[in-house]
């Protein structure tokens, strides 16, 4: 539909003939133009309002092209041109000037719509509000097109999938824009990364856990491993209790070397005498560790004597202490076994 000066011309092509409907309504357009034209009256009321003589008022009304501006606005051309640009009457005049339809048009005459000529000095500049409206409308149209296209595609995919095996496709729903940058979600992401890293570390520690996939199964294996280790500690303590408890570990030499260390701090009522005070570090640890290690090169290995026939207190692992009548066996670490035997 082409709208030309308030008239609607519907052209229907049927072969070679062109039917034009509503050409008679052009007469109403001419009447509207006559009404919009300036009336020729004396305008005494206008003269009284404007405090101008009657001839000047008539000149102002009859000649709209010449615009008389006050002296204060004489220099500002933009201020003067702005109301004429945005006014409704200026648009109506533009439409009347640009419409090239004669009043006495025949029914077979072709209707041609010409582009309106911009009255501004700058032809490229256009109305910013109109541009925004155009952009918004085009964006809406594009969105609607995309939406219809996506619905068509999803319908076609659904039809294909229902035709193949009646399996619905997996639709991945994305999160909103602001959620990924939220501080809570970032903290939760960092927490999940920490948990995953520590689960990997635990998988490396627990034997046979690398093959298992799934956090629940990994946690089950970790629990079983910790339980088995704790049971092993209990069994070993049972064995140590069941072993001949008259064995006395002779650590007097070590204790003499270790006399100044902070590990000698005793806590009353404790089985284990070496408890740390809170916040106290282990100072000069390397000096003491050097004293702990004994030279195992000049000592016989356990279970092997150089002279099997002749056993002396120097070559035996368990030597009987004849000086004491306590009847206890003494475990002599100086002659039999190095300290780092336990660290193997």
């Amino acid at each position, binding site marked *: 539909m082409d709208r030309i000066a308030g008239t609607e011309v519907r052209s229907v092509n049927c072969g070679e003939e062109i039917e034009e409907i509503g050409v008679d309504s052009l007469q109403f357009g001419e009447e509207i133009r006559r009404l919009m034209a300036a009336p020729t009256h004396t305008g005494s009321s206008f003269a009284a309002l404007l405090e101008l003589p009657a001839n000047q008022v008539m000149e102002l009304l009859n000649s709209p092209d010449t615009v008389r501006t006050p002296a204060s606005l004489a220099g500002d051309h933009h201020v003067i041109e702005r109301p004429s640009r945005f006014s409704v009457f200026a648009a109506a005049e533009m439409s009347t000037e640009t419409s090239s339809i004669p009043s006495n048009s025949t029914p077979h005459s072709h209707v041609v719509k010409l582009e309106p000529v911009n009255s501004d000095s700058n032809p490229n500049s256009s109305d910013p509000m109109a541009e925004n409206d155009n952009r918004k409308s085009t964006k809406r149209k594009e969105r609607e097109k995309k939406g219809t296209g996506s619905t068509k595609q999803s319908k076609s995919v659904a039809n294909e999938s229902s035709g193949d095996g009646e399996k619905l496709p997996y639709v991945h729903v994305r999160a909103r824009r602001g959620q990924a940058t939220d501080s809570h979600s970032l903290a939760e992401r960092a927490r999940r990364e920490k948990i995953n890293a520590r689960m990997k570390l635990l998988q490396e520690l627990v034997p046979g856990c690398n093959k298992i996939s799934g956090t*629940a199964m990994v946690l089950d294996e970790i629990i079983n491993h910790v339980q088995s280790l*704790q049971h092993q500690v209990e069994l070993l303590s049972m064995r140590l209790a069941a072993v001949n408890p008259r064995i006395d570990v002779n650590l007097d030499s070590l204790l003499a070397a270790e006399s100044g260390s902070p590990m000698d701090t005793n806590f009353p009522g404790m*089985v*284990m*005498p070496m*408890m740390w005070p809170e916040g106290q570090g282990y100072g000069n640890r390397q000096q003491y560790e050097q004293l702990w290690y004994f030279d195992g090169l000049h000592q016989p290995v356990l279970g092997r004597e150089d002279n099997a026939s002749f056993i002396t207190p120097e070559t035996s*692992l368990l030597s009987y202490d004849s000086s004491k009548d306590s009847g206890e066996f003494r475990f002599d670490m100086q002659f039999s076994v190095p*300290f780092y035997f336990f660290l*193997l």
Partner: protein
Amino acid sequence: MKQSSIKTRFTYGFLRTLKRLPKTRAKSSSFSPEEISKRCRIIKLATDASMASAVGPRRAWSRALIRRVRSQRRQRQRQWLVMRRTRRGERKKGGKEVGGGGQTDSLRKLVPGGETMELCTLLGETAHYIKCLTTQVQVMRNIVDLFSN
């Protein structure tokens, strides 16, 4: 902290504790099962305490072990106060956790001091606790093999 230094300190402390254990009488050649079980309990406490002292106070599970050893040596009258404190200090579990609630709860019961931990710290403490437990088992096996020969 290096694992070798932990191993060295644990070995030294555990042997020293074994020396200070109450010695049995020389006359009694056979030992009653009650005495053996009591001695086993003492050795178990000694291993826990020596392991915790070797690790140091930086780890939460070692601090919890020390508290447990101390509380077991105290009188029964004061022990319920410690239990009440630990119940008060329990963390309110909220939100989803990895692997479901039952597995994390059982892991909290296994790791000393795990009742008041979040899941992330619990996993880190569990990893360190497993390392130290394996060290403890190795050293105790060596000592048992030495004494049993």
